[in-house]
C-alpha cells in the first residue's frame, strides 16, 4: 500500500533536502492556515487543561477539545490529500510536504528528514 507522506507546515531546516513541487492559491492557503492555527490553539488548550490539573473539573470541556482536535486533524489531512491529487505534487517515501504561508509555495522535504519525521511522529 502506498504510504501517504506526513505533513507539517513548518519552516525548512538548513541543509535539508527540499524542492518546490507546487503552489496553492491564496484562498487555499487561507484554508490550511486556518486549520493549522486552530490545531495549534486546540493543542495548547489541551496542554493547559492537563498542566493545570483541571481535567477533573473540566472533563466535558477536555473531551470537546480533543474531539475538535481530531476533526481538525482529519480536515487538515483531507486538505493535503485533495490538493496533492488535484495538482499532482511529487511524493517520496518518508518525505513530507510543507507550505510557506507567505508565498503559498509547497515544498517536498525528502529523505534527509526521515529521522526528524519519525521523532515527530513518535511525539
Amino acid at each position: 500500500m502506498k504510504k501517504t507522506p506526513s505533513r507539517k507546515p513548518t519552516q525548512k531546516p538548513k541543509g535539508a533536502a527540499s524542492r518546490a513541487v507546487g503552489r496553492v492559491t491564496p484562498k487555499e492557503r487561507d484554508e490550511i492556515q486556518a486549520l493549522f492555527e486552530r490545531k495549534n490553539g486546540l493543542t495548547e488548550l489541551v496542554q493547559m487543561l492537563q498542566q493545570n490539573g483541571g481535567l477533573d473539573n473540566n472533563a466535558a470541556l477536555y473531551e470537546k477539545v480533543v474531539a475538535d482536535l481530531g476533526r481538525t486533524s482529519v480536515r487538515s489531512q483531507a486538505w493535503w490529500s485533495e490538493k496533492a491529487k488535484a495538482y499532482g505534487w511529487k511524493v517520496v517515501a518518508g518525505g513530507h510536504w510543507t507550505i510557506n504561508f507567505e508565498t503559498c509555495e509547497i515544498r517536498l522535504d525528502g529523505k534527509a528528514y526521515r529521522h526528524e519525521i519519525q521523532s515527530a511522529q513518535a511525539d
Partner: protein
Amino acid sequence: MLESGAVPFCHYENPHFHSGAAPRWIDERLLRGIVRFAEENAVAATFLFGRHRLPAKLARLLDSVSHTKIVPLDMCEIHPDAIPVLFSEDAALFGALKPNPARNLILRLARSDLSRCAELFDALVGKFGRLSVHLFGIEECDDDDLARYADELEKISKTLKKLYAAGQKIEVNVLTDRMMLKRMRNCDAGAKHVTVAPDGKLYVCPAFLYDGESAIGAFDGKIGFAVKPPSTVVFSRAPICTRCDAWHCKRCVWLNRKLTLEYNIPSQQQCLIAHIEREASRRLLKELGQTEPFLRMPRIAELNYRDPMELVEMQMPELLHSAADDPML
C-alpha cells in the same frame, strides 16, 4: 487556455502551473472550433501557454489563425514572437532573456518583492519595448507596502527620464499608460473578452477558474460562445469607477469580486494603488513636459484625494449622513 497549467500572467495564481503533473491539454476538436470561430468572426485570439511543449497537432491549428501568445519565461526560446511572463521571484533567471527593444514583457511582481521593483526594472531595460507590471498579492497590501511601491515608482521614473533623454522609446504600463489615455481603458474581462478553459467552459477571466467560481457559459463549435457574464462587469455599472480618472487602472473584476463580493466595486487597495500610479505618472509627465512627445500630452491634474471613494464622500455627504441615521446600522 491551451493547458491546465497555463501561465498565470496577472493578479491571480494558477497552482497547476507550478505542479510537476502532466498537463491536461485542450481538446483538439475544441481548439479547432475556437480557431475557426476566431477566423470567421475576426476575433482577436490570445493563447495562454504553460511549461509544456505544445503537441504538434495543436500547434498546427494555432498556425492557421492570427493570434497573440503569452508564455512562461522558459518557453520564450521556442516562441520568440510571444509575450513572456516573468515572475519577480525568478529574477535570477532574467539574464537568460535576450535583448529585444521591441518585445512586450509582463512582470508579475509579488507583494514581497515590491521593494525590488526598480531593481527588477533596471535588470530588464533593453529587453522590452513595453513592460506591463502586474502586482500579485494586492489583497494583502498595507500602508507600508503602498509607500514602498510609491518610492519604487519614483526610482523607475528617474531611470525613465534618463532613458527618454537618451532617445529610447519604452513604455511601462503603470507609469506611461495614464499619460496617453483620454478615457478609461481597463481590462474589461467579461465585457470585451472571455476565457475558454481547456474543457471548453467559459470564464470572465482565468482567475475565476482557479478561484472556484462558476463558469459563465461554454464554447460550442456550432453556435460559438454561449456566454452570459454578470451584467455588473461592464464599466457603466461601476458607480465608483465612473467617477475616477485613473484611466489606466486594470479595474480587475476578479479582485473586485474577491475583496468586496461585487464585480463592480473595487477594494480600497486597488484604488490606492491605481492612484499611486496616477500620481507617479503625473509627476513624471510634468518633468518630461518640455520634450517630445510628452509636450503634446494633456497635463494630469493634481488631486486632493487618494481614493475615489473619498470623492464620493465629498460629493454626496448626505448619503453618509442618511446611513449614519439608519437605525439598522
